[in-house]
């Protein structure tokens, strides 16, 4: 068995500079939830299958349950907690609320972060582009139709 190692990582989480000692085998999702108290990011499976743990690393969607915290040294990380600014929900959060894109809400942080990554790259996605971008995010409740409507509404709001 390998000998465990630790290292100091410096990264930005939702705009805040963070410096912490982490073991090399610590997953980003555990770092965020257990060390940073950012429990908005969810764990829905035992690795890589559901998308509930999606966060942004340097602006791109990443599965935090199969990403090592140690490999994020120097990265800019955004989680669902970084969506609302000064108490105001983001366009995506409002749209998911208004268009019933969230039911039990477990998949929602991952859905919103994957949608956020999409809208940054493509502010006017058609339905096919939304379906493709959310292809790795599973929802057991909504049947997806309202999730897609929510992303379309958020995109429309951002354009208006």
């Amino acid at each position, binding site marked *: *068995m*390998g*000998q*465990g*190692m630790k*290292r100091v990582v410096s990264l930005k989480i939702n705009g805040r500079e963070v410096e912490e000692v982490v*073991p*090399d*085998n610590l*997953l980003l*999702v*555990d770092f965020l*939830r*257990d060390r940073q108290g950012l429990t908005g990011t969810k*764990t829905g499976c*035992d*690795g*890589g*299958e559901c*998308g509930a743990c*999606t966060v942004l690393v340097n602006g*791109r*969607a*990443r*599965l935090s*349950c*199969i*990403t*090592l915290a*140690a*490999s994020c040294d120097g990265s800019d990380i955004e989680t669902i907690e970084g969506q609302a600014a000064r108490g105001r929900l983001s366009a995506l959060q409002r749209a998911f609320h208004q268009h019933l894109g969230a039911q039990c809400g477990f998949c929602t942080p991952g859905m919103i972060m*994957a949608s956020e990554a999409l809208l940054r790259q493509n502010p006017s996605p058609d339905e096919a582009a939304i379906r*493709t*971008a959310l*292809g*790795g*995010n*599973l929802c057991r409740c909504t049947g997806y139709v309202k999730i897609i409507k929510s992303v379309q509404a958020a995109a429309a709001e951002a354009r208006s």
Partner: protein
Amino acid sequence: MSEAMAPFRLIRPASLDEAMAALAVEGAQPCSGGTDLLVRLRKGLLEPAALVDLTGIAALRDVVCDESGMWVGAGATLATLARNPDLAAYPAVIQAIDSVAGPTHREVATLGGNLCQDPRCVYLNQSHWWRKSNQFCLKYRGDTCHVAPKGNRCRAAFSGDVAPALMVHRAQIELAGPAGARQMPLAEFYNEDGAAHTALQPGEIVVAVHLPPPGPVSEYGKVRVRGSVDYPLAGVAVACEPTPDGLRFTLAVTGTNSKPLLVDIPDPLGEDADAFFAALVKTVQKAVSPQRTTTIAPHYRRLSVAALAGRIARRLAADAP
């Protein structure tokens, strides 16, 4: 808190030389996007002493296109390759890349990782307690292959989408290791053994794939349960090229054997197209050997991948100039 993985050292080399040195140490395992490896580490399917993260090596991400064809670095991500206009001249490759896992996986998943990903089996890709209660299996910690208990080799199925597509375009694979660099046809890189499915020697890595200049038209198709985030139950790439004797087809199948399988179609398309395609379908049915490695019956996978091969071949023939 997720169940802790066995401890390891993470090494992040910035150059190929540094990576080679790090990989020379016993128990070191290369890691690219981690979308296959991290899942297996979490399930306790291997316990490397060190992970050598190859993603910091810029040279491995290069993609070069010139008159000799395309040189694609093993570290190029599937998301970047899907957007590469030069790669569009190899349609099956782009289609296969687009069908790998989900979009978030493809952001970090690399070509090298895709080609080296571990073969899969319902008795293997399970949690530690599941495998333990089943006395583990031949591939890891156990002594019996539950798929073929009388056999003496692991039957786990190679389930990468991109390899067959590269194979029908006659790709070569470039390796670098302690004994130097070497190159071989991609088809020869693989062994029919689920526990040792590649030619990689200790400390050796995939550096790149070389594609000859574009020629054949091609298509990749995949049988799976869901339209996204699903490994192939079986997949097939077909390439079609005009020759003086008529159209010639090259096929490669994934998901049915422990290696991606080149299927030889010796004759070109003749006068009787229906008989030709019926024979092609039969050839695929006979060539593949799906086992009970997925929850879907092997017979279904055999028939469906052969039917898919026939359908794609007909389509390519109809579109051929």
